[in-house]
């Protein structure tokens, strides 16, 4: 069962309050950076549902992130403005459909084969957009206007405004977290966590595990599509690089760095990696070298990620050596 301690909940609420209070102090550049990191946090959270809770290591998760952006780009190609109320459902439906197809084939395999087949599907989509000159080929396409929230002449929120979009993203992040938390506490969530712990036993209990894995894959893919939708709206550009395996790898890195199987961990991971990268770009020209070394160090020395740090430190203070079994919940 997915539980968070009172201490964790209070910290999360404090973090939300801080994020909500920040915009006036951030300026345009950091405002945009934090908006982007919150979007990447949603994306990483959706991957955590697969890796951390269902035990499915998807190496092609960015496919849904980018696909949704492309659907938005295609829908906005010929119109001056479109209503968010039909553009968003269209993007989510398109992504969900792709997740159904990819998931239907992928959940039959397991282990490394699952890693590789999700990668193969993502690469297929990557090359589809990369070689499609009508959609800008490898340069991608611009999205000239954002969808609006206007109903008739009444426009409650102007999404072109940076602050408004910041708060929209923050609300999305919080709702995604709460939604996933609710899902994991529901019977469905307990079954997928059972699959992660021991698929054979879960099947022996009478659950059609493949169906549960597929549904989990679709939910994660659709949520990744939602993040991709926000990202494309935010940056006004979509390119094949959004679907590439580097992006999928980075998302995996975010989840594990933050702490998989915690939901809020991946968001911490997104912020940590994002600010680290931003800072490295300022101080060195070889930022990726240090990013790489950082990732290696995390794998070797912080197996449970940043979210596991308080527990690790507490254990250290009690002078109890870490044991392998504690890493596997």
């Amino acid at each position: 069962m997915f539980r968070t301690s009172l201490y964790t909940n209070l910290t999360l609420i404090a973090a939300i309050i801080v994020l909500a209070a920040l915009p006036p102090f951030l300026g345009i550049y950091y405002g945009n950076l934090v908006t982007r990191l919150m979007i990447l946090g949603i994306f990483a959270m959706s991957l955590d549902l697969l890796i951390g809770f269902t035990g499915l290591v998807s190496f092609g998760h960015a496919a849904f992130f980018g696909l949704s952006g492309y659907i938005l780009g295609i829908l906005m190609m010929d119109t001056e403005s479109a209503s968010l109320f039909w553009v968003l459902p269209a993007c989510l439906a398109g992504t969900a459909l792709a997740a159904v197809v990819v998931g239907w084939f992928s959940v039959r395999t397991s282990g490394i084969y699952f890693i590789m087949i999700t990668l193969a599907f993502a690469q297929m989509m990557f090359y589809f957009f990369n070689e499609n000159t009508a959609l800008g080929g490898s340069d991608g396409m611009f999205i000239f206007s954002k969808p609006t929230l206007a109903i008739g002449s009444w426009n409650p929120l102007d999404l072109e405004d940076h602050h408004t979009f910041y708060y929209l993203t923050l609300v999305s992040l919080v709702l995604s977290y709460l939604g996933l938390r609710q899902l994991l506490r529901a019977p469905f969530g307990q079954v997928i966590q059972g699959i992660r712990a021991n698929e054979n036993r879960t099947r022996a209990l009478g659950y059609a595990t493949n169906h549960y894995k597929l549904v989990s894959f679709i939910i994660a893919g659709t949520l990744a599509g939602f993040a991709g939708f926000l990202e494309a709206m935010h940056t006004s550009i979509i390119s094949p690089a959004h679907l590439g395996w580097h992006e999928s790898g980075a998302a995996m890195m975010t989840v594990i760095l933050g702490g998989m199987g915690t939901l809020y961990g991946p968001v911490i991971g997104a912020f940590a990696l994002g600010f680290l990268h931003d800072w490295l770009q300022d101080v060195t020209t070889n930022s990726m070298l240090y990013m790489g070394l950082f990732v290696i160090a995390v794998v070797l020395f912080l197996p449970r990620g940043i979210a596991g740090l308080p527990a690790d430190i507490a254990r250290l203070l009690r002078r109890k050596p870490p044991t392998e079994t504690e890493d596997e919940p």
Partner: protein
Amino acid sequence: MSLATFLIQLLNSVQYGFLLFLVASGLTLVFGIMGIINLAHGAFYMFGAYVVWWLFGYTESLTLSILLGVPLIMILGFAIERLAIARLYHRDHLYQVLLTYGLILVLNECQKIFWGSDFYSVPVPELLSGSIPLTENQVYPVYRVFISVVCMLLAAGMYVLIQKTRLGMTIRAGASNREMVQALGININWVFAIVFSLGAALAGFAGMIGAPISSVYPGMGDQILIISFVVVVIGGIGSIKGAFIGAMLIGLADTFGKVLVPDFASMAVYATMVVILIWRPQGLFGQPVH
């Protein structure tokens, strides 16, 4: 498509397939024997190509550059195995993927620091720069035939090494039962280090011998890595025979895909993989998944 064109494409497929096999065999050995997913394998291919270009500047000879370069890549592989990979043997695949992903970032950046981000080319050796006439106006370069022959010899050499020598016997035993091999008093860590360095050397060699026909550029390792994974998964992870068949299939799919459906050639490779995995989820020669 005329017969001559078909023949040329077929030869190209086989030559590409052989190069892929060199890279993929190292990948499949490392997975089959050590249980390690090594995403940084493509970096050895890239380093091979860059090292041979760099040495060529001093030696002016491709053969000499390769002879000097292969030990360098082997040392690089050995160092990486000892320093990083060796700590991952009992960890989940997830962490292996992540650590080797970090290695890619580091190695790609090192390549940029050492050699910059320009495209380079290595000339084909004088002796092998000719062409074989096939019809009146279609020729086939000798160097490509040479690559196929060399790779064929290497594949045969690997077969002998694995099937007929004591080291090969140990490697095969290690692949089927690691604990038992250790119980028999063989230092499995030493075997792992050898296998990993050999795999790195094979990938590096593929990069070196392929350098004259494909230019040397940043990111070349990433591209070959993903294709090699497709090959390994199609063939069945851990199976050398599977890697060979897989490499040839992908060589055919890629080359003929470019001729027949030029717009979607890159997708042809992945579509092949998906079809094969639906038919046999464990690959052509893989052990069924438990």
